[in-house]
């Protein structure tokens, strides 16, 4: 499985996903890797009652292996409850471009 497929599958296996969008943003960054930078938006009721830092930690826990021993370098996360997602009209901020230093 590709990195993207692995991320998507494990999120779907672990959360009651209502909406999921995974963008490969590796082209915005320096270096030869093509599966290094991703942006993941997930809407799931699982996030209710959790602070942002706790939501992110839950998702990062699923991608630990890919980050430590795989090509995944940065995973931008936008994690919402269905209610929050509806309030913001279904939009997230753009990721910044890389500065090409510091791997």
């Amino acid at each position: 499985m590709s990195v993207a497929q692995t991320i998507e599958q494990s999120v779907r296996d672990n959360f009651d996903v209502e909406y999921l969008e995974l963008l490969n943003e590796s082209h915005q960054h320096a270096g030869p890797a093509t599966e290094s930078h991703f942006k993941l938006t997930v809407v799931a009721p699982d996030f209710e009652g959790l602070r942002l830092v706790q939501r992110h930690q839950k998702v990062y826990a699923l991608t630990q292996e890919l980050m430590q021993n795989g090509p995944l370098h940065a995973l931008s996360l936008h994690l919402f409850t269905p209610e929050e997602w509806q309030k913001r009209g279904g939009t997230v901020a753009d990721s910044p471009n890389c500065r090409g230093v510091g791997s």
Partner: protein
Amino acid sequence: MEIIRQQVEQNPVVLYMKGSPQFPQCGFSARAVEVMSDIGKPFAYVNVLDAPEIRTNLPKYGNWPTFPQLWVKGELVGGSDILLEMQQNGELAELLADIPEAQ
């Protein structure tokens, strides 16, 4: 780990980042600095590119795999996605309300 504990407990606000606020070496670190500058409260920073031990150990200490990381009063607040989100919804200003303004 002891150094990290001292840093996050002795500095009310500390940003672990790649590069310095003047010369961020990564787009996500640059974004975190922009958010903190807008908020206008003073913050300490640690350039993890110059501190390989902290770069290796902080992800375990905070259960957070990437940089930047903002710590306030000894607790992990999050990375750049969370800072941006909390700037937009006002929670960051609230969290830093009792930190004195920069001189």
